[in-house]
């Protein structure tokens, strides 16, 4: 099964659900689903800023497994980080996300 994650809420999502569950499972090849993309809203985008330690692991695993990472453009502009993301990580909105996923569509989109 192919899944895409949308990190829409803030609280404990990146530091806990992503960093302590999803990411280690992806690194250990035991996540149980093929992750094709991750899209980040609001403060969750800080994980995509070049140099972020969780983001560095995520960026590496995404490159190895061909996972699309994308930040919400308006969220990144609002935080002045749009041009500070890991190399090759784009920003965009829904049309960009759907277009980027169109070649590898997920079966499920999971909003966290």
């Amino acid at each position, binding site marked *: 099964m192919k899944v895409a994650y949308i990190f829409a809420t803030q609280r404990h999502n990146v530091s806990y659900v992503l960093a302590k569950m999803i990411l280690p499972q992806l690194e250990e090849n035991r996540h149980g689903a093929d992750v094709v993309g991750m899209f980040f809203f609001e403060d969750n985008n800080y994980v995509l800023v070049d140099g972020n330690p969780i983001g560095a692991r995520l960026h590496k695993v995404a490159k190895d497994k061909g996972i699309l990472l994308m930040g919400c*453009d*308006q969220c990144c*502009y*609002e935080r*002045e980080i*749009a*041009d500070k993301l890991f190399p090759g990580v784009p920003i965009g909105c829904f049309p960009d996300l759907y277009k980027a996923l169109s070649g590898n569509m997920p079966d499920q989109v999971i909003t966290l």
Partner: protein
Amino acid sequence: MTAPCRKACCSATPRLTVSELVERGFRRNRAAPLPLQGDELSDAEGNTARFSLAIAAERIVDANFRVSSCATLIAYCEFIAELVPGARLNIVTALTAADLVESVPGVPALKRPRAVLALAAFRAALAKANERRTQTEVES
């Protein structure tokens, strides 16, 4: 005297950050078009842009636009719309896409081509203004 810094680091408003240009641009994007409308242009990604102008005595009095809901495109168009009021028609033609990219920092490289569409749409409206001026001169 130097102009106040209008970046995110300072409190001088209105700020010229992408985020705040987008916020102001969203409102302008919904405003009624001004009397002189340029052609609607589009890019390869399906974004569209059209400027409208109010002109008096060879000067731009106001500028509005109607564009796709792309934040970067709105920011570039808003920058143009805030820059040009009061400018002479023949002077604003000197504005380039590179100027626009340089004036609105913080846009990642992948999104900078939106400046080309924004500027082309603005120039299309200027071309309409010049057409109308020539027509008026011929008639008089």
